[in-house]
């Protein structure tokens, strides 16, 4: 391989790899996770054992995993991309058939010590396989229709499986994350324009299907759309969550009500306050200052990743890094937009802050890939 041929002598080996790690990124990730511990401690009413402690243990495990993944050369991960994708698809099919139903929609695989969510894993595997695909593809063929259809298929297969669970949020993230990789790889922008056009058309068709015999979404999904468009239409029913979330967020003001002083979360007006809606507690207790600071941390993480991608001449490594950065961005952007009433409630956690195992582990592994790309980049 060309990559190995002229650059292998510059690649650090052994313990020296640690010096080449992207340490600012590690610090930023730890800072975000720290915000998470603080908020989980707060929403549990000052109880450490309930959510904060398990989350710390998971983050510790995630950190270890990240370092482990970072130590493994990036070309190994490139070779594993197809395998990871195949395993993800297999797991998705497996949960579809034998999965564990929890919270009404999400499907999990019980591994004994952790409830694994294959859809989380799929997000990273999809980015990997697309990056590997474009690494393999002749540059001049990038925008040929046939070679656009292949990655489109790679994206749509898991999206369809996830949509069937049903998990609208993850499906959205898979689509957009995959599209980001394709865009970065240089697929002609006309394809995206056509897809966006078709998407708008499809939205129109889906909305028009309501109440028809061929209705395309579940009733509850339509109700979520209604609620998103006008939460006050049903303040005690479906709109309750978003209305209460907005109240919590807005009432924080500039500096917030103080740590553990948020009335909305303390008095249980907030739904899912330790998972999808944890951002509202942060905004309530620390105000704009706290909420904006977290946003800055997130943007810095994405920024470091983008910078790493821009300085990496390896096609697989840079596409993988940019894809993971985009996926991570989509996580917090969709979550924040959702709790601030800018997007429908689709069930996307706030990355590294929301209580939950799968997302944390998978994200840390993804950042391990980013680190591996950095450590093993051609110098």
């Amino acid at each position, binding site marked *: 391989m*060309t990559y190995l041929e002229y650059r292998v002598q510059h690649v650090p080996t052994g313990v020296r790899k640690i010096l080449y790690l992207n340490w600012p990124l590690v610090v930023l990730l730890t800072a975000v996770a720290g915000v998470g511990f603080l908020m989980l401690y707060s929403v549990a009413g000052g109880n450490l054992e309930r959510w904060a402690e398990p989350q710390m243990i998971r983050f510790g495990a995630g950190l270890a995993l990240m370092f482990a993944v970072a130590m493994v050369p990036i070309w190994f991960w490139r070779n594993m991309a197809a395998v990871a994708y195949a395993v993800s698809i297999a797991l998705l099919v497996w949960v579809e058939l034998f999965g564990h139903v929890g919270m009404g929609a999400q499907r999990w695989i019980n591994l004994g010590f952790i409830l694994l969510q294959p859809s989380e894993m799929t997000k990273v595997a999809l980015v990997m396989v697309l990056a590997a695909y474009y*690494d*393999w*593809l*002749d*540059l001049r063929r990038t925008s040929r229709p046939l070679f656009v259809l292949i990655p489109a298929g790679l994206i749509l297969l898991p999206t369809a499986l996830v949509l069937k669970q049903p998990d609208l949020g993850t499906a959205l993230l898979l689509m957009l994350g995959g599209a*980001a990789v394709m*865009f*970065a*790889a*240089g697929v002609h922008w006309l394809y995206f324009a056509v897809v966006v056009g078709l998407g708008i058309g499809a939205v129109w068709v889906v909305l028009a299907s309501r109440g028809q015999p061929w209705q395309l979404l579940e009733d509850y999904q339509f109700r979520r759309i209604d609620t998103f468009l006008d939460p006050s239409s049903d303040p005690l029913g479906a709109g309750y969550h978003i209305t*209460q979330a*907005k*109240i*919590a*967020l*807005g*009432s*924080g*003001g*500039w500096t917030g009500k103080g740590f553990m002083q948020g*009335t*909305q979360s303390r*008095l*249980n*007006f907030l739904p899912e306050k330790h998972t999808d809606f944890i951002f509202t507690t942060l*905004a309530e207790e620390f*105000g*704009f200052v706290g*909420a*904006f600071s977290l*946003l800055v941390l*997130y*943007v810095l993480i*994405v*920024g470091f990743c*983008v910078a790493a*991608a*821009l300085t990496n*001449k390896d*096609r697989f490594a*840079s*596409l993988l890094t*940019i894809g993971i950065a*985009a996926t991570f*961005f989509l996580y917090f*952007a969709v979550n*924040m*937009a959702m709790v*601030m009433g*800018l997007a429908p409630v689709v069930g996307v956690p706030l990355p590294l802050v929301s209580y939950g195992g799968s997302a944390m582990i998978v994200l840390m592994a993804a950042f391990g890939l980013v680190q591996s790309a950095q450590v093993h980049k051609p110098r």
Partner: protein
Amino acid sequence: MRRTPRDTEESFRRVSRRSLLLSGAMAAVAGVLALRMRYMQGERADEFRLLAEENRISIRLIPPARGQIFDRNGVLIAGNEQNYRIVMVREDARDVPAVIARLRELVALDDAELERALREMERRSPFVPVTIADRVSWEALSAVALNAPALPGVAPEVGLSRIYPFGPDMAHVLGYVGPVSDYDLNRLDDPDPLLQIPRFQIGKIGVEARLERLLRGTAGTRRIEVNARGRVLRELDRREGEAGADVQLTIDHRLQNFLLARYGEESAAMVILDVTDGDILAIASGPSFDPNLFVRGISVADYQALMAHDHRPLADKTVQGTYPPGSTFKMLVALAALEAGLVRPDETVTCNGFREVGGRRFHCWSRGHGRVNLHKSLVESCDVYYYEMAQRLGIDAIAAMARRFGLGERFDLPMSGIAEGLVPSVAWKAERRGETWRVGDTLNASIGQGYVLASPLQLAVMTARLATGKAVVPRLVKSINGVEQPVPEFADLGITPNNLRLIRRAMEGVVNEGRGTANGSRILAADKKMAGKTGTSQVRNITAAERARGVVRNDQLPWNRRDHALFVGYAPMDAPRLAAALVVEHGGGGSAAAAPIVRDAILFALYGEIPPLAAYPESQRARIRTMFETLPVLERIRPGSGASRA
């Protein structure tokens, strides 16, 4: 795929360009998020802060103590007693059936009530206290408090509930309170938030209902912090409400008590007025009922017994009942004739038992009074004399005089269902019945029969006006919150004093002359002598055939076909202070069934106690003594004893 260095450079450029574009898009989205944050937490923060407060704080009402009601002497006749109940909190009790089983050993629990409580417990949140026994005795309450450790989740609570210490005596005047119903909410159209409290007591009838706004008071509030499920976390502050106003009535509870006792088994209604200021000293309808039963929620059996009773204990006959006034109406006819100058006082009319008008015979109650002048016509209650007057006057002149004396008028008293009665006229009959007025109608009206209807209250007012010559207006409320209600200066009725004097002389004769119809009910005490007029009103027509066979005596008829007995009177006759009117439903003759009761009542009122036998004619004293000795004295219901269950 093998790649040349040129390819790698080309790829690097392309990925870099697209990555920068992508970063730009992401930065734009992040900017939108930051702006949204600033908008919500900056511009709209106050609005959301307010909403968060509204979420957090819940306002609970504190029911005010209802105003108390006193009689004219300051004796409590409607008060509030502490009402002990036992409540249970499901989540604290944990094993509800076991706790209830243990509770059962201490307190008698009503099965139906318990079942309702358990259902409510199931429905409400587990931390809401649910009443499982209401109105428990102090002893039962102490037992529960003593065994508190064995009864988790069970707690005693104290509330206020209405009590009427004299029970049936005041039932019709005061009415009663009861828990507010959907019907009340629709009827009252009252925005007071207190009415939304479950089982809040409001006046249903009588003074309690008519003076509801005064008696209720205003709600206090306490602001409490609640969580999303409504659990109370702490009280933030508390603003006490204002208790309802205390009301003093003109009623004398002892006189009222005496009247009801004196009625015995009769269905009777009597009103006693103070003629100087219109104060209603007693207004009693018998038989009565215990209003406390209604406050606690009357049982179906008790309610049906009250409804089925043919003496109609629930009806207030003093103001709701209207009766043909019979001969008590004659004073007004005589006065109308005198005032119109259509008769001289010494002019005589011959009575031979009947008068024929238009081919119909109108009978006198007697077989013939002979030559009858004005005085004798009232003393002996000759009907034929009034048939003559009726023909001279016409109905409209009679009606005008009746109205001046308060008949056909609805007095504005805080009581329920006050009837207007009926003073008929030519126009009334044409309008309401579509018939022309006939002379015979006037003749019937002249002796208080036919269409004429009056309530005992109206008859008492009529008597007071006859006794004073002034437009006496009755009143029931003496003071509110200690502020004496003004007594208006009564206008003169404008009756020629001499004519009024003639009528009073005759009323004195009715009681005090040997041939008077109420001579048996005369009073011997010189300064307490009574004047009055008897009345007997038919509730059926006597046919010619019946009359030929001999009129059936009242006591041979079924109760509800017998005549009503009436008596109106005032005393002392030389300087009138009291005026009274009594109707004994289907009691027979006014002189035998009504006059004696009025005499006893007026004497009781004047003496302020059971009158001495010396006030009565010697021949009657033995009978009167026995009667007073066997008079059932009504027990006062003491707060906390009769009202509790155990």
